[in-house]
């Protein structure tokens, strides 16, 4: 057991024993390699199940408005930013949650591993320093961790939470890579092809929406039936409208935690749309999602001198 896991368990146990919280949200080992699953720890026993490694890619903030009144949550940098946004949107009371910040080394993109293997199944995966060793049947593959990290993690500027109640000592926090937002093709038709190809994969299971802590509408526009804005059929146009609307509804709110990409069972990845929204919001409105609790969300207000470069003039 490594030092970080020991800290996590100790902290969880203490919070539960001191009755500061009823529940600690963390991760425990999942049924499959590289798949830690949410752990709902309510006792010292539960706390001892908690674990941590580079396969804790889900965003636990999705459970914050649920199963208990006072909750402690283990939060990576991106998770803590999601919590900031949820607090701004008054989803729960600040005093009811204890944020346990976990410095993040970056999470594995399972899809990248699968693509390297050419299989969705692997029997075993373990970390050996900066290498990931994956076994599938008789094949063993050694991959440098850096190559199979999520793009979001490779580009993450805030891997260590900036908003927390307790910050665990993670001297291992990685140094963020230089910002390298994946460039989109300059050619419009190529961009459309890319989007069309991603949207075509979508089966409309809504895993992306449902794992997203910020996608909490009581009734999603994709489910509304009167009027029916987005058809429920996984047809090209309906998928495209769904994905575009999701990106738009998360503009200025998405924290690039990557949970939706991780969740997708068929590998739809439209992170670049979300990144474009992030960039626009930053450049146009000077706003960073989840940076500070006292910054007003850009779409909750307006500016008198916002750029008008997109306006058709005559």
């Amino acid at each position, binding site marked *: 057991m490594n030092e970080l896991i020991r800290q996590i368990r100790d902290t969880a146990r203490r919070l539960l024993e001191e009755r500061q919280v009823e529940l600690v949200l963390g991760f425990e080992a999942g049924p499959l390699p590289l798949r830690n699953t949410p752990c709902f720890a309510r006792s010292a026993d539960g706390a001892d199940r908690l674990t941590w490694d580079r396969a804790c890619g889900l965003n636990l903030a999705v459970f914050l408005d649920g199963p208990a009144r006072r909750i402690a949550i283990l939060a990576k940098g991106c998770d803590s930013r999601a919590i900031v946004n949820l607090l701004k949107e008054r989803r729960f009371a600040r005093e009811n949650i204890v944020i346990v910040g976990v410095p993040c080394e970056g999470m594995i993109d399972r899809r990248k591993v699968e693509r390297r293997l050419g299989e969705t199944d692997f029997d075993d995966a373990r970390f050996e320093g900066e290498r990931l060793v994956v076994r599938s049947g008789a094949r063993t593959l050694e991959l440098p961790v850096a190559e199979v990290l999520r793009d979001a993690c490779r580009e993450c500027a805030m891997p260590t939470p900036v908003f927390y109640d307790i910050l665990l000592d993670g001297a291992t926090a990685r140094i963020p890579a230089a910002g390298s937002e994946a460039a*989109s*093709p300059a050619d*419009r*038709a*190529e*961009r*459309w*092809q*890319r*989007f*069309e190809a991603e949207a075509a994969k979508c089966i409309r299971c809504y895993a992306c929406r449902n794992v997203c802590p910020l996608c909490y509408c009581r009734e999603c*526009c994709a489910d509304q039936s009167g009027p029916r*804005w*987005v*058809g429920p059929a*996984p*047809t*090209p*146009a*309906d998928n*495209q*409208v769904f994905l*575009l*609307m999701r*990106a*738009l509804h998360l*503009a200025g709110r998405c924290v690039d935690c990557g949970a939706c990409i991780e969740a997708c069972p068929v590998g739809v990845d439209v992170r*670049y*749309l979300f990144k*474009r*929204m992030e960039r*626009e*919001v930053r450049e*146009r*409105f000077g706003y960073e999602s989840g940076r500070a609790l006292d910054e007003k969300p*850009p*779409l909750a*207000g*307006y*500016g*008198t001198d*916002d*750029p*008008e470069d*997109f*306006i*058709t*003039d*005559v």
Partner: protein
Amino acid sequence: MTHSVQDPTSKNQKSSAWQPRILAFLCNWCSYAGADLAGVSRLQYPPNVRVIRVPCSARVDPLFILSAFRRGADGVLVSGCHPGDCHYLAGNLAARRRFALLKALLDEAGFEIDRLHFSWVSAAEGGRFAELIHKVTEKVRALGPAQPLAKERRL
């Protein structure tokens, strides 16, 4: 699993018979009145625009716009009061943020963004409205029938 919903006769070719169908959301207080003035002043502009009157440009949810394209509009125009002139003080300023993001998003996705226009037309600007419709219609016409996002052009 995909259904062919496109009409092969009206797609892929910019025949002279084809006329773009443009949906315009006009705010009740300025742009709709501007359109009215254009009509009263007998200004000529292309008949390709179908107008939906809305109380304010801020009433226009991006979902309306995507839905219009999904249902086969070739172009969409949203027009409201000039910044500072909003009947509801700042509706158009709030809308401006949303539209900026929508347009950037569609650009990123590779949608032909010249199909989507935002503008400001006041109640006194009948001439400007006619000019705007000329400009928008020509831009959309140049692009031909909309393909991306369109589902229900012909079922």
